[in-house]
């Protein structure tokens, strides 16, 4: 498992982009009253057929030729099992894939959400042709990001510091110091 859920999100989004997606939608819902965190990553990549989908949780299965293990989804599966959560993966060839992870917020083995801004900047900067959207809901509050908003700046590293500052300040205002 990884130290932060934001790293798992990066990994799953990268899987979608490597599967040909030009749009990745990420949603995080935090419902404290239900002790529930839901993470959804949806891409419009090439999708998977049922045969691959059946095997995807197996750490010794991968469609890659460079290695013999595929750890990304099995990490999530292990995390769901360890915390009493749930992992669902829906995929349709030619349409895309949706990964949905539900975790109990209060479980001691649930990793923190972590540095989601770094994940969004990383995804946007190295995949400039892909639209990355992110919506986080915390009870009645909503924070959102759309890489199309910063598309004009993605080819200019000199403005990266300013982009980071704006995003971190905006997100900090949203969470109000409450790290999940």
């Amino acid at each position, binding site marked *: 498992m990884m130290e932060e859920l934001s790293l798992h999100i990066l*990994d799953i989004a*990268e899987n979608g982009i490597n599967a040909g997606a030009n749009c990745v939608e990420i949603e995080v819902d935090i419902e404290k009253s239900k002790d529930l965190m839901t993470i959804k990553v949806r891409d419009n990549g090439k999708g998977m057929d049922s045969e691959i989908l059946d095997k995807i949780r197996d750490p010794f299965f991968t469609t890659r030729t460079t290695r013999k293990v595929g750890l990304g989804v099995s990490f999530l599966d292990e995390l769901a099992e360890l915390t009493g959560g749930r992992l669902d993966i829906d995929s349709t060839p030619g349409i895309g894939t949706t990964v949905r992870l539900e975790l109990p917020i209060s479980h001691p083995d649930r990793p923190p959400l972590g540095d989601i801004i*770094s994940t969004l900047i*990383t995804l946007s900067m*190295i995949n400039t042709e892909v639209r990355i959207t992110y919506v986080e809901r915390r009870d009645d509050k909503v924070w959102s990001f759309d890489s199309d908003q910063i598309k004009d700046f993605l080819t200019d*590293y*000199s403005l*990266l510091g*300013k982009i980071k500052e704006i995003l971190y300040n905006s997100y900090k205002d949203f969470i109000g110091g409450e790290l999940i």
Partner: protein
Amino acid sequence: MKSLEDLKRIREQAQAQIKLRTQEANTKIIVGMGTCGIAAGARETLMAILDELSKRNIQDVVVTQTGCVGLCEYEPLVNVVKPGQPKITYMKVTPERARQIVASHIVNDQIINEWVLSTEEGA
């Protein structure tokens, strides 16, 4: 600086001085962003590279990503490809190493041999 609108204004004012990066840029930095790379710290490595390029106002470099190449134990891996030079693969690139690679290899053309995993001619 409070919003993207402010940033847009700054960009428009500075646009004349900005040399935009293109796919024909001279140098490529490629970071391994497979599961193994991400678990080993590739996100922080990439952020450090972008930050260093930003601080030094370097524009003629493309930063991109690749998946797992089967050398998971050496992640995070960073490739530097300069025109007319072999592709250099650096291993176990921490954010600190990443900043030094930008300063030494990208800016001053000095390969840091101590961290080189492989050299590929004609890349």
